[in-house]
């Protein structure tokens, strides 16, 4: 009798433990990714709406703060790999490092500028899809009576976090667009020429006041 009771308890306990252990992460897994994107965007909007950062003499500092927030959630390594695509494997480690740094600066300025134009937009976080180690978070940006804008974020799972590797605005992928440009420049000239052009663009952006 005692033996049969022990045998009876174990499967139930194991089953309950299994359900307990694996169900919670499965239900919270999806929202964790969207939460991460939301926190980053909310942090940027908070900076934009804070009165202290609206002053003219604070704009440069505000831009740097936005770039810091962006750098924590954007994986410049993953973006660089995808933007160079078939040209990536031919690069030396030094070239890759230089490219990631330069491309990262370009992306930071690009995204920071777009987010700086936000005023009273409402962002709705919608559908989320996950496939192995990549995820897609869909958002809709609504502003007054303008047509809503669809912005999708593509993320990849890294060691520490889910990091953004692309964003797609109204069906147009930023990384695909850059990939087309980089491929063309490398074919026509060289990788070194591409780096020179990118650095020139980054310098122009630093000089330009937004």
């Amino acid at each position, binding site marked *: 009798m005692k033996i049969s009771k022990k045998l009876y308890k174990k499967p*139930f306990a194991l089953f309950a433990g299994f359900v307990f252990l694996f169900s*919670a992460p499965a239900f919270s897994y999806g929202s964790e990714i969207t939460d991460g994107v939301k926190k980053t965007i909310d942090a940027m909007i908070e900076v934009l709406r804070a009165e202290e950062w609206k002053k003219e003499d604070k704009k440069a500092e505000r831009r740097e703060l936005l770039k810091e927030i962006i750098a924590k959630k954007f994986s410049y390594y993953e973006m660089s790999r995808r933007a160079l695509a078939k040209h990536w494997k031919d690069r030396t480690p030094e070239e890759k490092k230089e490219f990631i740094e330069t491309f990262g600066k370009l992306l930071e300025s*690009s995204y920071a500028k777009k987010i700086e134009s936000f005023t009273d937009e409402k962002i709705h976080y919608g559908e989320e899809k996950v496939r192995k180690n*990549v995820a897609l978070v869909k958002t809709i940006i609504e502003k007054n009576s303008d047509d809503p804008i669809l912005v999708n974020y593509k993320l990849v799972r890294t060691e520490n976090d889910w990091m953004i590797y692309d964003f797609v605005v109204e*069906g147009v992928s930023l990384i695909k667009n850059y990939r087309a440009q980089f491929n063309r420049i490398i074919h026509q000239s060289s990788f070194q020429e591409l780096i020179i*052009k990118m650095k020139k663009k980054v310098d122009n952006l630093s000089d330009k006041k937004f």
Partner: protein
Amino acid sequence: MKKKYPFLVFFIAVVFILAFAKTGFSEYPWPPESSKSTKPAKAEEIKPDISIELTLKAPPPLSDFEDEFEDFQGIEGGEDVEYSDPIEPFNRFMWKINEYFYDYAMEPVARGYIKITPEGFRKIVVNFFRNISSPIFLVSSILQGDKEKVDRTIGRFVINTTIGIGGLFDPASNRYNLKKINEDIDQALGYHKIPNGPFLMLPILGPITLRGVVAKIPQIFLGPEFIFGIGIIPAIAARGVETVNEFSFRLDAKEDLDSFAIDPYTSVKDFYFQHQKTLIKE
């Protein structure tokens, strides 16, 4: 108590699951779909047996889910998508001409237009021209066999022409939740997998493909100029107003292109094709 122990643990587990389910989904407007997918992609599941291969139907097209991640296949070794651009030197020359035209003609006119016209008026102009393009939306939707869009086009046209006072306003979107439609004959041809043909950069008109040029021909007969017998000069003037009005909403996009593109011509070309693909998919 000892006898009830397993049931108690099971009961707590079920309550925990239900509590997490509610917390996880309640915060967002659209409840997320199934979070972590443990199923392999459809393409990986298809392993046809040779003996029954001939009886299998063609594999289904990529779902939206897979299509959105197709670029993942292009990392470090995949083939880039190449768009046909056999007359690229000429197109680039036209692009430069257009840049001068936009920077020294269109942009100053658009900025002046913005200064003298309130945003509400400019939206009325957009609504009006969108409404009179309904025959084009309708024919394109019919050619694609999209019954929902056909119904929506007719519904939008009737509501906006009547309640919307000749299409100046858009109660179809704002009050009746009938989403805007953006269709043309070029998209219908793309839907039926007719190739784009070579890319063209037209003077003033901007990027298009050979398929797009061909598609414009039947559209002439669906436009209000032909339907209402409007003369050429008034028609050109009206289209001029429409173009300036539309450009006034895109000044930011032009600025972004100038600021962030390393090769603006290639950027515009790629944007055009990606955008077309999205419109056709919709």
